[in-house]
C-alpha cells in the first residue's frame, strides 16, 4: 500500500518536473514575489526621488516613479558643495573614519561581552544581562545632556573619540549576539577545550564563525546608526572641520527660511547618504546567508 502510494507520488512529481518546480514552489514564488515588491519599494522610491524635477517633488499624492528624470538635483547639490567653506571631502573623510572604526569596535566589544554572558556561569551573569535589556529600552534623547558632561570631562570634545566612544556600549548588538550564542551547542565548545584550545581560541575559532549571521546583522545595524547620526557632531564638536557628513547634509535644508528651496539638493543628498548603507548591506548580507547555509549547527 505504502509502496504504491509513494510510486504514485513519484509519478506526480515527475509530471510536474516539466515545469521544473512543484506546486508548493510555485505558490511560494507567487507569495514571496508579492511581498518582495513591497519590500523593494523604498529602494525604488529613493532612487526615483533623487531624479525628480521640482515639478514632481511636491506632487500630491506623491508618485513613486519619476516621469521626467533629470540630473538637476545633483547639479544643485554640487553647487551647494562649492559654497561650503570646508571642503566636502573633509566631512566625508571624518564620516568614513568614525563609522569604520566605530562599527569595528562595537562588533569586537559586544561579541566579547556576549560570549561569557551566554556560555559562562559566573556570579551575576543574570543581573548583567537584565541590565543590558533594561538599557535597551532607554531612548538616547534622554541622555544627551549627561553624555555631554561625560564627553567634556573625558576631554574628547573635538576629537574622533567623541564621535566613536558614545556608540561603543551598544546594548542592541550584545543582545542579538548573546541570543545567538545561546544556541551554540556547549558540547562543541567543550570539544574544542578538550583539544587544548584556550578561551580566546574557542571564541575566535568556534563561536564567532557560527554566530556570523548575528555579527553581520549587528554590523549592518551599527554601521547605519553611526553613519546617519548627526547628533554627536551637534553636541560634542565645536570645530566645524571635525563634523561629519550627515551633519553637513542636515544643514542644506535646515537653515533656510522657506521649505521649497534646495529640496532637490536634499533629495540628491538623501540618495548619496543612502548608498554606503546599501553597499555595506549587500556585502554583509551575503555573509549572513552563506554562513547560515554551512554553519556548524545542524
Amino acid at each position: 500500500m505504502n509502496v504504491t502510494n509513494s510510486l504514485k507520488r513519484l509519478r506526480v512529481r515527475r509530471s510536474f518536473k516539466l515545469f521544473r518546480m512543484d506546486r508548493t514552489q510555485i505558490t511560494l514564488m507567487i507569495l514571496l514575489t508579492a511581498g518582495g515588491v513591497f519590500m523593494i519599494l523604498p529602494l525604488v522610491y529613493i532612487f526615483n526621488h533623487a531624479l525628480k524635477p521640482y515639478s514632481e517633488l511636491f506632487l500630491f499624492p506623491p508618485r513613486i516613479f519619476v516621469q521626467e528624470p533629470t540630473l538637476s538635483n545633483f547639479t544643485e547639490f554640487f553647487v551647494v558643495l562649492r559654497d561650503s567653506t570646508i571642503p566636502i571631502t573633509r566631512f566625508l573623510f571624518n564620516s568614513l573614519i568614525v563609522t569604520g572604526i566605530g562599527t569595528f569596535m562595537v562588533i569586537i566589544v559586544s561579541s566579547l561581552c556576549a560570549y561569557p554572558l551566554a556560555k559562562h556561569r559566573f556570579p551575576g551573569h543574570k543581573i548583567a544581562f537584565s541590565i543590558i535589556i533594561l538599557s535597551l529600552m532607554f531612548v538616547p534623547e534622554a541622555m544627551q545632556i549627561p553624555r555631554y558632561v561625560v564627553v567634556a570631562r573625558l576631554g574628547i570634545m573635538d576629537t574622533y573619540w567623541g564621535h566613536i566612544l558614545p556608540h561603543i556600549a551598544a546594548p542592541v548588538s550584545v543582545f542579538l549576539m548573546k541570543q545567538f550564542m545561546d544556541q551554540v551547542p556547549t558540547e562543541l565548545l567543550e570539544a574544542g577545550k578538550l583539544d587544548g584550545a584556550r578561551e580566546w581560541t574557542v571564541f575566535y575559532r568556534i563561536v564567532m564563525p557560527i554566530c556570523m549571521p548575528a555579527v553581520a546583522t549587528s554590523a549592518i545595524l551599527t554601521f547605519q546608526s553611526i553613519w546617519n547620526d548627526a547628533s554627536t557632531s551637534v553636541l560634542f564638536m565645536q570645530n566645524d572641520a571635525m563634523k561629519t557628513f550627515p551633519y553637513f547634509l542636515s544643514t542644506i535644508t535646515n537653515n533656510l527660511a522657506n521649505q521649497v528651496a534646495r529640496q532637490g539638493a536634499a533629495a540628491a543628498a538623501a540618495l548619496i547618504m543612502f548608498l554606503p548603507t546599501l553597499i555595506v548591506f549587500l556585502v554583509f548580507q551575503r555573509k549572513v546567508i552563506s554562513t547560515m547555509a554551512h554553519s556548524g549547527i545542524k
Partner: protein
Amino acid sequence: MLRNKRIRSTTLNKLEGLLFLSPWLIGFFVFMAFPLAFSLYMSFHQIRITPAGLNVQYRGLSYYKTILFEHGSILYNDLIPFLRQAMFMIPIIVIFALLVAIMLNYKFPGRTLFRTIFFLPVIFSTGEVIQTFYDQGEGSLGFLEQYDLNSYLSVVLPPAWSSTISGVLDSFILILWYSGVQILICLAGRQTIPASVYEAARIDGASPWESFWKITLPAMVPFIFLNTIYTVVDLFTFPWNPIMERVTTSDYGLSSALVWIYFGIILLFLLIVFFGFHRFTRAYQLTK
C-alpha cells in the same frame, strides 16, 4: 594538589569571563549608566543652563505629578492610541516574520535573491527612508478606500478600536518594513532545526501541518521570544514615535520625568511578554 589546581582553573575561568566583559562594561558605565542616573536625578530637579553653568533647583516629585495627574494631555493624548496600535502591530510583525522565514527556508529557484530582498528592511528601518515615506503619506495600500472597509469597521466596532485597526491596515506596508531583523532572526532560528527531525516525523506519518505545530513552532519559541522583545523595544524607542517627539530639550526636568514614566510603561510591556513566554514554555514542557 589536584584540588588546588581545579580551584585555580575555575577562578581563572571567571577572570577570563570578566576580562571579556570589561570593555563593554566600562563603556556601559561611562556612556549609559551614568547618564541614566543623571537623567533620573534631573527628573527631580529644575535645570537651567546659565553662562555660569548648570543651575539646579530641587523640585521633588512635582514633574511626575504634573505629567500623571494635572496635565495628563502631555502623556495620555499620544500614549493611548499608540499603545493600542502597538498591541496590533507587535503580533502582526512577529507572525509575519515567522511565516516569511519558513517560506524562505524552502528550496526554490531564486531563493538567495528573495532572502536578500526580505532582509532589505534592515537598512530602511532606522533610516531616513521610511521617514520620508511617512511624511509623504506613502505606505498605505489604498485598498481601504477601494473596498470601503473603514465604514464597515466603524459599524462593527466601537470607534476607538475601528480607527486603530484601520490605522494598522493603512500602514500595513510600514509594518512589513519593520520586520527585517525579525525575519533574519527567525530564518537563522529555523535553520537550527535539523532536517533529520522532519524526516523522522514524516516516516512516522506526520503531515506537514502536524510537523509545523509539533516540531517547528516549539523549536522556534526562543526565537519568537527574542523577536517579540526586539519588536517591542524597536517600536517603543523609535525616534519619531509620538512620545519621543514630546521629549524636548526646552525643559530638562519635565522631559526626564516623562522619559522615566515612559520607561516604566515599556518595562511593563516587556514583563508581560516575559511572563507570557514563561508560562508558555512551562506548559509545553509539561505536555512533553
